[in-house]
Structures are given as C-alpha cells and as structure tokens.
C-alpha cells in the first residue's frame, strides 16, 4: 500500500475519474471513493482523521492498521510526500459492503432516469430503505456521526410510501419493508402503519407525461432554433430527463424586438421552478428562470445591455448559441453517456450487487 499527501490529507491516491462517475462514502475518519463502472471495484481512501478510523484493522488486518498508524504518526500530509508500506494491503472483499453502500448513495443522486432514452426511474422509498439497512449492517465503520450514518434521515421521508409499498404484495418488497420498520422502531422513527394510506410513490411515476416545456418551443415562427443538453452536476436530481439534447430553444420576434423561448424535458417529481437559464450567442445574452413546466421566455440584450431589435436578431448568426440550465460549469457528454450505458447494462442484466429498486425498474421495463 502506498500513501500520498493529497490536498492536505493522507490518501491511497486519487481516482482517475471525477464526478459524476465517482461514488463516495463518508465513514469515521475517511472518505472512500470508487469509479461506478469500474468492475475491479478499486477504492481510494482519503483519511480525514486517522485516529477516528478505528475500523482500519477490519480491512488491513491488525498488523496493517498498526503499520499505517506507526508510519504516519502525527506526520502532516504536506507537500508531495509518499509513504510506502510493504506487505500492507486491503483484504480482498473487505470493502465490498461499503462499495455497495456508496453505490446506493450514488444511485439516489445520479441515476439517469429518462423517458426519452427509456431508462426507468428507481423507486426512491425502496432505494432509501435498502440503503438504511446496509448502513446499519456496516455500523462498525460509523463510530462517529458522519454525513452518511443518518439512518433516520433516510427512512423518515418515506413513512407513508413504505406502508403502501408493503401492501402491494411483492414478497421481496414486503421483506425489505418489514426489516425497515423494525429498524425504524428501534431508532425512534415513526413509520406510517396505516396500510390504506394514499400512496405518494415519489420517484416512480412511470406515467409521467412528456414535459409541456418542450411544446413551448414548437409554436410560432422562429428566427432560429436549436437544442442543447443539461449538465447534470449543474442541477438537482429528479427534475430533468437525463437524455442529451433535451433543451430546445427558439429565437422569436417579440414586438419590435426578439426573445428566446426555452423548454427543457422533465422526468421525475422534482420541480424546476426557479432554476436559472442562461442563453449566450456571440455578444447577445439572456437570463431567466424556469417555470413549473420547465419552460422560460427570456428577453435578449446585446453587449451594451440594450434590447436587441428584430432585424438585429434576423441578421445575427445563432449557430454558436449556448443554453445553460442551472449553474454554469463544464461537464463531459462522454461521462453522461458512460453513465447511461452503465444504467442500461444494470437494467438489462441485474448485477449481483443490484438494489431491489433496480430489479423492479428492470422488471417494469417490459
């Protein structure tokens, strides 16, 4: 095992990939990361506090844990230091439950649900329930309160949904919900025991209609039109369709001037209201926010902040237009494609580490 000083922390070395391809897990004294579609399951461990990582012997063996502590001591991870530890290695399979838990947390936030690409959404209540149970199973790694040890926080929002799921009669679901309600009782979370309750079924609306926002970009005569993609890291999950080119924009005459009409395809139950839209096209800009349908009508101004005229709009070359949804940042479309491939592969043939929510999504695909 080799430890390197990375951004002021001791680490086994950073992963080659970055978000959104990385699944992370915060345990006591360390942050663990994996590349989601890396079949080798190799982990990167960054120690936030070596003393708190009192579980280290479980994955390195006692002599390995002792060796790491002895080698690092109170040494500060400054500059480009490297510490080689001969004969110290992560025991095969010892991190597997943690990797699966990290993957579960990743699925909650990055699963590319898409109507357009036919990638079914995952049931949020079932996924969270399974993550909660997995967290308890690896409680040895959560000696201190961490961001990821909040089991109650995972279950509490689904109290009604879990009750109604259990009444559907799928034995796999019933078993999971039963285990989860026992857990809930022990940790002081009140699950709704009323099995006749109206299902909220957040996150599994397979009948969700195509967004009205995309229609908005179809009407009227357009000076120009085009499509672009949503950067996933720029927006919260559970709102937008995860396919490419789901942002349609048009430039239209508006009185003496011109406006742009933007529509984004939605999937899921989250609301797009208030999310920023920015259009830029060599000197011309427009900013606005999305409405409940994922649409926005945006006035356009030139470099002098003056509204542009209709004739200027007709004269303008709109080919370089970019439309940004949410925060402005760079994200590679290849990463998104890799994630959609990963999701499709998991739906086509449920993996050994598949979550029940994935298995049900795969079954609903027929």
């Amino acid at each position, binding site marked *: 095992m080799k430890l390197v000083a990375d951004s002021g922390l001791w680490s086994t070395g950073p992963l080659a990939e970055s978000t959104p391809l990385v699944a992370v897990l915060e345990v006591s004294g360390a942050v663990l990361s994996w590349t989601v579609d890396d079949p080798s399951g190799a982990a990167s461990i960054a120690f936030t506090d070596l003393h708190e990582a009192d579980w280290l012997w479980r994955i390195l063996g*006692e002599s390995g844990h002792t060796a790491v502590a002895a080698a690092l001591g109170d040494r500060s991870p400054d500059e480009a230091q490297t510490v080689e530890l001969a004969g110290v290695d992560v025991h095969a399979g010892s991190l597997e439950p943690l990797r699966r838990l990290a993957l579960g947390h990743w699925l909650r*936030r990055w699963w590319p649900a898409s109507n357009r690409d036919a990638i079914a959404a995952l049931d949020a209540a079932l996924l969270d329930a399974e993550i909660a149970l997995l967290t308890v199973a690896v409680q040895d790694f959560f000696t201190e309160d961490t*961001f990821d040890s909040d089991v109650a926080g995972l279950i509490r929002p689904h109290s009604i949904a879990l009750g109604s799921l259990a009444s559907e009669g799928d034995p796999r679901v019933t078993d999971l919900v039963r285990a989860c309600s026992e857990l809930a009782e022990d940790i002081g979370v009140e699950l709704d025991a009323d099995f006749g309750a109206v299902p909220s079924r957040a996150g599994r609306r397979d009948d969700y209609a195509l967004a009205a926002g995309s229609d908005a970009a179809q009407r009227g005569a357009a000076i120009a039109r085009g499509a672009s993609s949503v950067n*996933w890291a720029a927006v*919260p999950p559970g709102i937008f369709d995860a396919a490419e080119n789901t942002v349609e924009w048009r430039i239209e005459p508006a009185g003496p001037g011109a406006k742009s009409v933007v529509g984004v395809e939605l999937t899921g139950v989250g609301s797009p209201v208030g999310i*920023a839209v920015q259009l830029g096209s060599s000197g011309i800009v427009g900013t606005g926010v999305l409405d409940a349908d994922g649409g926005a009508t945006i006035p356009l101004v030139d470099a002098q902040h003056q509204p542009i005229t209709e004739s200027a709009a007709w004269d303008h070359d709109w080919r370089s237009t970019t439309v940004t949804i949410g925060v402005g940042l760079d994200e590679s479309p290849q990463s998104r494609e890799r994630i959609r491939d990963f999701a499709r592969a998991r739906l086509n043939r449920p993996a050994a580490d598949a979550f029940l929510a994935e298995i049900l999504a795969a079954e609903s695909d027929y």
Partner: protein
Amino acid sequence: MATTLAVTQPRRAVIDRAWRAIGPGVEVLSSHDGSPLTRTVKRIIDPLVLRLRSNTQFSAPFVAPGVAEAMHEVIVGNGPELRAAAAWFEILKRERRRLRITTGNAQELYFPVCFELAVTKGAPAQQDPAAAEAVLRDIHADRDRTAIEVLNQHLSDRHVVTRLSDQLGRSWRDVRAGTEITGPFMAGLTTVLGPADSHTSSVARQRVWNALIADAAPYNLGAAARSEASELPWSIVELGLSSVEPQPPPPIVTGADRDRPLNRAVADRVRGTLRRALDRDELPDIPMLCAEEVDRACAPWGLLAEDKQATLIAGIEIAACLAPLADAVVTRYQLAGHIQARLRKEAYVLHARRYLADGGPIHPRQQQVIDDLAAFERPYLSRLWARLHGRDVWQEPCDDVDDVRGLLDGVARSVSLDHRQRIKSMLELQVAG
C-alpha cells in the same frame, strides 16, 4: 521503535476478540458478524466495563500486549453481566413495542440502563413486564423539563431577580483588564496549534500550553472586549460573539439576543446547562447554579476558568482560517490547515452527491445556508463557546493540549456536519413538496 510498535494492537480489535470470547447470549448487543455494536462499545464497554475515565491505559488507540490482556480479562470477566444486560435489552425492547414508545434511539437510551440493571439485579426474571415498564417510564420521563420548571419558578420571584441583578452589577465592575502584553500568548499559540512529530516536541507543546493557560492575556482581552473593544485583534461583533461593541453586561432573565454567546441572559445560560445535564445523576441546586452563572456571565468571555478562556482565544485564531467552500485559505497554524483540508474534503462529498455545484448552490433555495457556510467562524465559535461553557460549569479541565486540539477539531467537524445536513435538506424539501 518498529519492533515495539509492531506488537501493539488496535484497541477495537482487542475488544472485538474479547467480545467473541464471551460466546452466545449477547446477540442483541452484536452485529450480524458477531462483533459488538458500535453503540455497545460506546455506551457499555468503554464507560461501564473498561471504565475509561479511571483506566486511561485502556483508552489508547493502540495497546501493548499486557494492556490488551488486561482488557480481554475485564471484558470476558464481565460476561455474565453482559449476557444479563442483553437479556434486559430484549425485555425493554419488547416493552417499548408494547407501550408504543417510538421516541429516541433504543440502543442509545437503554444500553447503559441495561448494564446497570444487570449489575444491580442480575439477569431479569422470566416475566417481569412491570419492572421493565417502570424502567422505560423513568427513561422517557422528561427530566429536562422538570429542572427547567424549577428554574422558571425560581426566577419568577422578583426578589431573586433583584438580588441576582445586584450581584451582576458588582461582579461586572470587578473585572478589569491588566496591563500585561498579549504578544507572548499569541506567539505561544503558534506552538500549541503547530506540529509535533516527535516525543520531545509534544512534551514542549504541552509545556507551552501550561504556560499559556496561566497567562493573563486571555483574561485581559476578554476584559478589554467590554471597554476598549477596538484594541482587540478581532471584532467580537464580526466573530458573532456579541451583537454590539463593546460587550454590554448580560441581562438576568431575558436576553435581547440568544444567538450571541456573550449577550445571552443568565437564565438562558442556566437552561443550556440543564439541557446538557441529562446524563448527570443529581439535579443541580438551581439557586446555586444561578448565582454561580451570574459570576460566570461577568467573567471575561463569559467563562470562569483561565484554561477555558485560553481555549476560546485559540479557537478564535483557528476560526479565522476555516472556509469549507474556499479553494485557497491562508492557514497560519498547522492544526487549522488540517481542519481546513478536512472541511474541503467534506464539501467535496456534497459535490460528489450533487448537493452542491462547483462550491456554490445547486438550487437557489440553498443560498442562505451557503452564505452561512461562508461565515464559518460564527457557528464555529458559538458551538465552541457552548462546549467550553459546559466544561466550565462541570469543572472539566482544558489543560491537556491534545484534548484541547481534539476539541477545536471536533467542533469544526460537528458544525460542518450540521451545515451539510442543512444543505442536503434544503434540496430534499423540494422532492417532498
């Protein structure tokens, strides 16, 4: 050195092995693979079986073979009590279900009680739901509220309040800044908050801290905060310790500002003590607590003991270097650098989980919490002050430099966790709504 270290064992591994040697009968206190639950270790083994407070040799993260053997013997020797505690826990859990109690974490609340029952009563009788019910009712009774009601009653007496106000006036006037310079104290902090990579340097670090907690500087700075606040190296308003400069004397019953530690009313401070006193056996004497709190509220930084005052100054210096969402921060102290590196990593977890975008909000609704994170020093100092206040009341020392550094680090961790959970819930609101 390598040979002596090679034979030490991680303490959790020692505990794990001893636990397995107990054999069957402790399953409810164990995880599915047979190791003790983390809560079993924290709530039963450490405090009640190994009794770390008096047996400090058992608390080291790595222990020598002799110590490991002793720990093993103590744990295995307590096997009968632990089995009885497990049996009690099963009964309490069953009773909890029957009584439909859903508040609190069953393990957290019942584990210590179960061990006490095992020691005092042995294994539970086969059918004794009445005893179990009595235990549960006692645990879930709101002792906190009882004590606070006594306090409210005490302070509803006009004469009591007048007497406390007079005392406050006198105590407040008694505190005056001395003429000693603060330079040496601040220079010493660089050592205390700096690295120590050898035995010699950690001994030196402890020696410097011993000198600093005897230094007049923290007292003088605190006294200056109420008269010549402009002479301080920082602004107590910007630090969030007080809403105005100079610091005014605190009120007795109602505070204009409960958020600022130095402006908090005496009654609110005592309430804080009572809330944190849940684990204590005896209910404190309320009139005495109030009188003492008046003196404490008048002391520099609202803390009586010099080591607490010195720790707060160290915390103020650390806080200035912490900014979880900022890329580059000048950290004047090695400890601050380490805490900042950790905060950055924790902020990265939010980014990797799509709760933050590029260090900023991913949804406009998060803006307020993000702004709070940018002003990290305020919640940091507020929480540090509360911890120090607790230690001041219970006379728990801050004289061990490693313990103080651990406190300064731990407060950052808890504020960061709190903030991150708020950032997360601001986003999840949207899904629920």
